Structure formats: C-alpha cells, structure tokens
C-alpha cells in the first residue's frame, strides 16, 4: 500500500452531551482527523449492540460510543445502561475474535470540545496502527466461495 491507511470511525453519540461537545469543537474551530462519522441519538441508552455490528459490517474500522458523564445524563441514567451493555458486548466481541481495541467508550460533556477533538485524534491514530478491519469482509467472501476440500 503506497497510501497511508485511513481508518473509518463511526461514533454513536447522545445529542445532549457528546454531540453538543462535537458542536463546541466546531464553534471553537478545533481541528481533528476527518475520519469520524457521527450518528446522533437522543441518549446513549438508545444504542443497541446491533448498531455496532451493523457499523462493523458496513466497513467501520473503529467504533466510538460516547455520552454524558455519569450523573449528568439528561435522562438521568441512560448512560449507565449504555455502559453496562457496552462492557458486556465488548467482551463478547472479543470472544468472537473482534479486537476490543476497536470499540471505544468515552464520556464527553457538552463543554468538552477539546476532549472530543483529542479523543477522535487519539482514536484515529490507534486504529490506524491496528490496520483495517477485514475479518467481517473475509467471512462474507469465504461464505460466498466455500473452501475447497
């Protein structure tokens, strides 16, 4: 590969904290890696593990789940549900062979534009080191062309 690998990161964020934090990074004109794509949800509690799987299937190399700090959830405790679900799901992913370093979790408040930009930059670098996420595509290819006996 002559060109440097550009990872694709899909971020599932809540609208009240992290989405607003990302907006703040924008209004503060902070610069960060253009590798992230945001999916806005009302609350991290809305994030189903299926979204993460879908994103990986679509070709994401890294996933970020980010919401309000503990105790700050607009819906009082949606972020706790998200954290619990994410913790279990991440180890499950690990079990089926998807490196858990690809699935990140963070608390970024509406006032933390800086933290958002830093998180995205750091994550882009880390995922770049891991390289592209190919397992899913390989699996699909293998299923389409059964191995010769």
């Amino acid at each position, binding site marked *: 590969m002559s060109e440097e690998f550009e990872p*694709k990161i*899909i971020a599932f964020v809540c*609208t009240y904290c992290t*989405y*607003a934090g*990302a*907006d703040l*990074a*924008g*209004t503060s*004109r*902070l*610069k*960060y890696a*253009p590798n992230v*794509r*945001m*999916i*806005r*949800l*009302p*609350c991290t*509690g*809305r*994030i*189903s593990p*299926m*979204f993460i799987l*879908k*994103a990986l299937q*679509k070709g*994401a190399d890294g996933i970020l789940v980010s919401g309000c700090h503990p105790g700050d959830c*607009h*819906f*009082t*405790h*949606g972020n706790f*549900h998200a954290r619990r*679900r994410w913790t279990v799901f991440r180890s499950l992913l690990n079990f089926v062979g998807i490196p858990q370093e690809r699935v990140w979790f963070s608390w970024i408040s509406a006032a933390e534009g800086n933290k958002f*930009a830093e998180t995205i930059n750091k994550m882009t670098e880390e995922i770049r080191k891991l390289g592209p996420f190919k397992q899913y595509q390989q699996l699909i290819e293998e299923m389409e062309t059964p191995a010769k006996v």
Partner: protein
Amino acid sequence: MARIGVFICHCGENIAATVDCPKSAAALAEHPGVVVSMDYKYMCSDPGQEMIRKAIREHKLTGVVVAACSPRMHETTFRRACAEAGLNPYLCEIANVREQCSWVHSDREKATQKAIEIIRSMVEKVKRNSELQPIHVPVTRRALVIGGGIAGIQTALDIANAGQEVVLVERDLSLGGHMAQLSETFPTLDCSQCILTPRMVEAAQNPKIKLLTYAEVESVSGFIGNFKVKVRLKSRYVDIKKCTGCGACWTKCPARKIPSEFDCGLGNRTAIYTPFPQAVPNKPAIDRNNCIYFQKGKCGACAKICPTQAIDYQMKDEFVELDVGAIVVATGFQVQDTDVYGEYGYGKYPDVITGLQFERMASASGPTGGKILRPSDGKEPQTVVFIQCVGSRDPSKGLRYCSKICCMYTAKHTMLYRHKVHHGESYVFYMDIRAAGKGYDEFTRRAIEEDHACYVRGRVSKIYPQDGKLIVRGVDTLLGKPMEIAADMVVLATAAVAQADAKSFAQIVGIGYDENGFLNEAHPKLRPVETATAGVFLAGACQAPKDIPDSVAQGSAAASKVLALFSKDELEREPVIAKVNEITCAGCWACYLACPFKAIEKKEIRDRAGKLIKRVAYVNPGLCQGCGTCVALCRSNSIDLEGFTEKQIFAEVMGL
C-alpha cells in the same frame, strides 16, 4: 418511491471554504431517491427557505435533507419551512456539515468527501422517516409553590395576580422564611419586617392563593402540566379554623424556657407558640416534645383557657392530594453549623455569635428589643469583631464557594452596631470584599468611611477569653503583622448552605442537585429558572446563595415561566417517544424496570368477552421523554423510538 430534496448551505464562507458545495450537490443528485439537489449561499435566509418550499411543491418531495449547521441551531427553522410548504416537519433532517465538518477540518478534498457521506447518510435516514404529529397534553392551571420565604411569596403573588391558582406550601408555622428574621436590609437599611409582612398578608388574603403552612411535600408524581402531589399537613394540635389567634394560650403556657428557633436561641418561647408576633397565619401550634401535657400527661392549661375550644390534643397528621400543572421550588437555605470552627469557640463562649443571631439582636422585635447586648452579661459591647468567610471559600471545611451575602450583611452589621452604640469600635476580618450589585460598593465604603468600621484583610486563628474579654488573634496580611484585639463580642459570618434535607427533597421532586446540595438549574446561563425536569422551576436561595433582590427577581422569573405554561389549554410536545408493538410484546417488563420516567405502564388486552389475553407494555405519551433506553433493552424488538427507529439508524449507518 422516495422523492428526496437535498439543500446544501454555503453558510457564506463558513462551509464553502472547506467543503466544495456544488460538487457535493452534484454527487448527491446521483444518489438513488434524490430528485433535487442544490446549493445556496444562505439556506436559512428567506430566499433560501423559499427555495426549499418551492422545491417541495414542484417536485412533490417526500423528504428533505438540509446540509448546514448543527441541528441544535436551525432544525426548528427548516422544519417550520417544510411545514409551511405542506410537508410534515418530521420528514426534514439536518446534515451537520458545519460544526462537525467544515469548521474542524482543513483538507478540502477530505472534508468534501466527509460532507457527502454525512448528507448521504441523512438521505438514507429520511427515506425511512414517517409523518409524526405533535403530542398534546392537557395542562392543569394550578401551580404549587414550595417554600414560603420571600422567593416563594413573590412567585405565588405574581402567578395569583395574573389570575391563576396557586397552592403555597410552607413547612414552618408561618410564611416569611429567613427574611422575617432580619433586622434591616442592605443597601438601603429599610426594615425587613416593614417590607416583608405586607407581602405575607397579601399572599394569605389573595383569593387565588391557597396557603398550607406547617405542611410538607411527601411525594410528587406525574409530569409537566399534570403533576400529582401529596402534602402532609402536620398536626398543630390547634384547630386553625376555630383559633382566633388571641394569644391567651401562650400567655398561660407554663413551659416557658424553650429556646426560640426564630430568635436563634437568643430568646425563649412557650410550648404552644407562634414563631413571631407578625406570623402569617397568626395561629399557634403545640411543640409536642416540650409540652408538659404530651410529656407528663397532665397540664392542659391551653385547652382550659382557650375561649373557642380550638385545642385538640388528639389531632393527627392529615394528607391532601393536589393536582397541579407546574411546581416552583423555593425551599431556601440554612446557615452552616459553626462546629467546624472549633478555634472560634462558638457554643463554648456565649459572646461568639452568628450573623443571624446578630440580626435578631438588632431587630426591633427581637429578644433584646433592638439593643446590641452581650449574651453573657447583657452589657453593651464596646468592641465587636466581625469575621467573614466562616466556612465559605474554605475547601478544608468542605465549602469551596462564596456565600455571596456575607460581605454585604457584615458591612450592614457594622453600621447597625455603630448606629446603636455610638462609640463602639468594630473590626472586620475579611478575605476580599465582594460588593458587586447596585449600590453595594457604595454601601461598604459608607461602612468604612462614615461608620468607621476597621477592615482588616486577614484571617483569625484563635479566639480565647481573658479578663472578661475575648482575645481575637489574627493577622493583618496587608501590613504583614500579627494582630490581637480584645473584643467584647465576636460575630461570625457563617456560610449559607443548602437545606439539610435538600438532596432527599430533590429526589422527591425529581430534580438534580450539585455537590453542595444546591438544586440544579437546566442551564447555568440561559435557563437559570428551569430544572432538567419539565414543569419544575426554581426560585431563590435553594439554587445557590442569593440576596433578597436576586431571590425576588428569580421568583418573578419563575412565575413568568409558569404563566407561559398556563397560557395554553394544551401543551405541545415533540412526538419523539417510544411506541410498543402490542402483537409481539411478551410482557417481560425489562422496559418497565429500566424506564427513568416511569412512562411504561402495564396494559391489559382482553377479548370481547372480557377475558384477559395478555399484558403488554404501554408507553404513556405524556411521561415518555424519548431517551430510547427501553428500545435497546427490548428482547423481542417490540418497542421502537419515533424519529430514531431501528430502521432509520441502520439506514443511516449503511448510508455512510
């Protein structure tokens, strides 16, 4: 077949500088389902909105994507424009290509590619949007104001004067709160009682205000416009309907040596008592713990003397249920316990008093009749030391914040002292003088220049008695010298702290509080009166230490929020709520347990004969706030969130 319109805004140069808008529009025009794709300099301007409206009509669009600034900025604007052209507003989505693309990237090619993907993803989402109708919730036009201090009184009066009903709940025997205890008020030195008591009477006599004193809120359920509140009416052992407030009972009561809470322990009261002579309502109650009848079983002096037979020793607490549409919390503050400052000897030396005790002493209706007298021997103190920031701004004592009112009331105390004891000397130990407010700095300067208060910048390390005086040992940090003053009396400006039960109370009402127990506003700058719970508002010092003008201003602000809510018969709410598929719901109640708003109800499904077939989850549209926690938890995928459905999110991901 979807017919989507894409409208890309340049936002002047804000977006166009890093995102190639015409190229993005051209790329999106190729996307399946997109029938019109255009870009324009300012989409939010009137000509820009007209472009959208025209395209909706001409191309019979079934969905609109506006690629512009954050939806937090102009979603409402563009949705309204769509509605004007006859398109359901919930068929319009915003692709955020400014805050989250053009402003944060500098590589034009990459930014353009990212913008195209963001817009494409939104197009895929909007294809699966459905028409939603706003939810209408009826509003009960009656407000509950909790707390009868100056903030609560002001709120109740403003709401009532606008013609709406108010229930004012106060947990003490009388309205008035802390303001009733004060002597004179800064910066005008007008008497607190003179300006407060007419307001108390006005509140009690207003036909629109229902006053519940000696009552506490037990529970709150429901939601904006439709709260159900249970209030405990604590038993006074006096029937206030029969009582005329003649005072015969408390003049006869033999238990007379009970320290008065209202006078901060400087004076005494009887077991059957009103807190102060101007109390509203001026009806007494029996303090069970100090009453001889209740403790020893015999006395009954008050019952014998009462001309209207109002005394009822058998009285029990009663409960009332109230339906209200809005709640204003004005529960106030309390003064910090001085135990944390052992070195100042409060409680050990009787002549070390708190600022609030000084207020009672200086009050014309107080225990000394307005004379400044030492509690130990009743003599007039010739030298008084005032210590500011006792507790406040001292992280080692647990409080990092400034109590805000102490600088001003200490300056006032030095003036009151000088006006009453003409040759008296006063010293003030301070950290900084914070006198921001109309006429406030002039006031503190007056204390120093005209009433000769000696301000010493520094802290006091120890107070100890010697020869009938209190030796105050401190340091003058401006001169860099230690200092010792032989004082007759010491006044501590103790911190204003949250009510001891503020946290449990906040949980009853369902609102947030900060690390210090003060109640949280929805936004510190732009929504200082609202709480995160719709329909619950804040007024006064329950939110943070406040002086009287600020409390009154916030009380009026809270009233205006309540009145705005009451201005319509029905509330209109965003239809972003959860919806249950009753066919597949198995009634496992995972959603029921997880819902933070208790919006999930158990609904019975019966056949024609009335036989119960099954129980399923039902979402109360008035309570649901649309967080979607239940959706992600549902094992059988039987709940979905309108506006953020599974289909929409999957499509959004696949569009990237």
